[in-house]
């Protein structure tokens, strides 16, 4: 079976979520190919070629692929896709943007947020904010699938490299133009890739309140996440949001502070290995998914936690 994986990258490095999609691809077929479309992204194509299980990389260069629009990317992918049984991309804002376009042009259904493969035509995906999981069977000749990265390990890189073939770019569509991007700069690990995430909610009270979390994150080398209420209140940027409509994370350790635990938030973090919740309300639903519950005032606990962490981690 042939599988086409569309790589997510920033023209310099291959995104970790792509490696998870490749793992899913390897479970589906033995002929796994990766499309790297970008601008000045040869290094990305080379990195993709070294990932274990990848048999061929198609590399397409164009200025308008630097930050490709869904319109341009879908046009490129659709042409290639007709020769494949599966077309995969990470279930991120990148994949979610163009992949449904590909499916519609191919006149096939799309499977969003794949979390498990049961058979070549049977897939498991969460619905209702993760309160239920559906097993679906696809009747389509080409199966277009977005892969939830937290459900698949990252594919390792090997010593050998697959060949890289150039794929001619398609002309830029005048339907859409990218005018600008404002990306949040951060020294911290990327939220979806971090081993430890400390997340704050409305309980943090202010942007200043989040400083207390930053101090903890510094000690732990953690990423910072947030509930929607914290983002809406302007405490942190919107790309910190974890949940049904934010990012899906599954770190080794998730520390939820001043977050009540609405289902829409749980949807984004309930697959974390260990969950710690700090909340002053004993009845907060977050405690139902917490491995360790600390019922206390965060403004008292966080400085204590920082001191304790610096004490034990210094040893």
């Amino acid at each position, binding site marked *: 079976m042939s599988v086409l994986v569309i790589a997510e990258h920033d023209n310099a490095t291959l995104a970790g979520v792509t490696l998870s999609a490749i793992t899913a691809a390897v479970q589906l077929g033995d002929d796994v190919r990766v499309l790297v479309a970008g601008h000045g992204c040869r290094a990305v194509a080379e990195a993709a070629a070294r990932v274990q299980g990848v048999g061929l990389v198609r590399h397409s260069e164009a200025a308008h692929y630097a930050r490709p629009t869904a319109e341009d990317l879908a046009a490129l992918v659709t042409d290639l896709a007709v020769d494949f049984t599966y077309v995969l991309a990470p279930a991120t804002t990148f994949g979610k943007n163009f992949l449904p*376009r590909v499916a519609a042009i191919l006149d096939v259904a799309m499977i969003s947020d794949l979390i498990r493969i049961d058979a070549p035509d049977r897939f498991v995906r969460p619905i209702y904010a993760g309160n*239920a*999981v559906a097993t679906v069977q696809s009747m389509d000749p080409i199966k277009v699938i977005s892969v939830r990265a937290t459900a698949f390990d990252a594919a390792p890189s090997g010593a050998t490299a697959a060949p890289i073939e150039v794929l001619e770019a398609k002309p830029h569509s*005048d339907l859409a133009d990218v005018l600008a991007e404002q990306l949040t700069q951060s020294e911290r690990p990327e939220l979806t890739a971090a081993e430890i995430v400390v997340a704050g909610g409305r309980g943090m009270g202010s942007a200043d309140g989040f400083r207390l979390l930053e101090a903890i994150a510094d000690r732990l080398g953690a990423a910072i996440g947030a509930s929607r209420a914290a983002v809406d209140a302007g405490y942190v940027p919107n790309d910190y949001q974890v949940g049904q409509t934010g990012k899906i994370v599954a770190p*080794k350790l998730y520390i939820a502070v001043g977050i009540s635990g609405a289902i829409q938030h749980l949807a984004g973090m309930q697959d974390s290995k260990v969950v710690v919740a700090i909340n002053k309300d004993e009845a907060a639903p977050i405690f139902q998914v917490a491995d360790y519950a600390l019922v206390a005032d965060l403004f008292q606990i966080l400085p204590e936690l920082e001191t*304790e962490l610096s004490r034990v981690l210094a040893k």
Partner: protein
Amino acid sequence: MVLVRRRGPLRERCAAHQLRSRRVRASAERAPTAQRGILMKVLVPVKRVIDYNVKVRVKADGSGVETANVKMSMNPFDELAVEEAIRLKEAGRVESIVAVSIGAPACRETLRTALAMGADRALLVTTEAELQPLDVAKVLKAIVAQETPALVIMGKQAIDDDCNQTGQMLAALLGWGQGTFACGVALAEDSVTVTREIDGGNQTVRLKLPAVVTADLRLNEPRYIKLPSIMKAKQKPLQSMTVQELGVEVAVRLKTLQVSEPPPRRSGVKVSSVAELVDKLRNEVKVL
């Protein structure tokens, strides 16, 4: 039928956004009609879903989730889409707003909500089948052919199937541009500029009209519905048709074999101090 907006998380908006929407309104008041240019029609698809506050339960036979006696509402993202269309109309950019819902006859309620919010007309497309995003997109394409809107604004995601596909599919079928996950929409005469929430931050795209925009959570703050609006909505036209009448062929491409509960998390323990917590994290689960 619940038409009055509940208080809840959708009401929570950051100050910056309220400021922005106030600015939009202020500039709308200033703009004289003559300078507004061509007035356009906006189509807003709205889906009837289980209310976001309901804890859904999986049916014992694994065939789906319990919907009997469960509160249903307009998909929250679609409320944002309706609100955005109304604001564009209030800003003098839009002439009329047509809401459309596809599904069981009960979707009428959802359409009445859209009308009470401020949509001008509503279309109900009935079907017995549970439609998947590609089919919904095909139905919407047929509606677009009839109504010729300059803009379709819809939710980015239905909170039941969580697919996040329909808007993109509709745009592809129409050969239109798309602005997904919108947190800002600025309409010009022949283009629309959309600020999109992406994983790393924000992205701004300009789309040629006609186009499809899908709403993200921070696009606006949907208004409360006042009682007089509910009464007025009853007078507004609501036209009903079937999927067959539209001539759209639907097909089952994805068969749901089973719906089950996610694996439960093991129950946790209470810790009484920071020292105990850190000790457990280091020595019991060894994550530090």
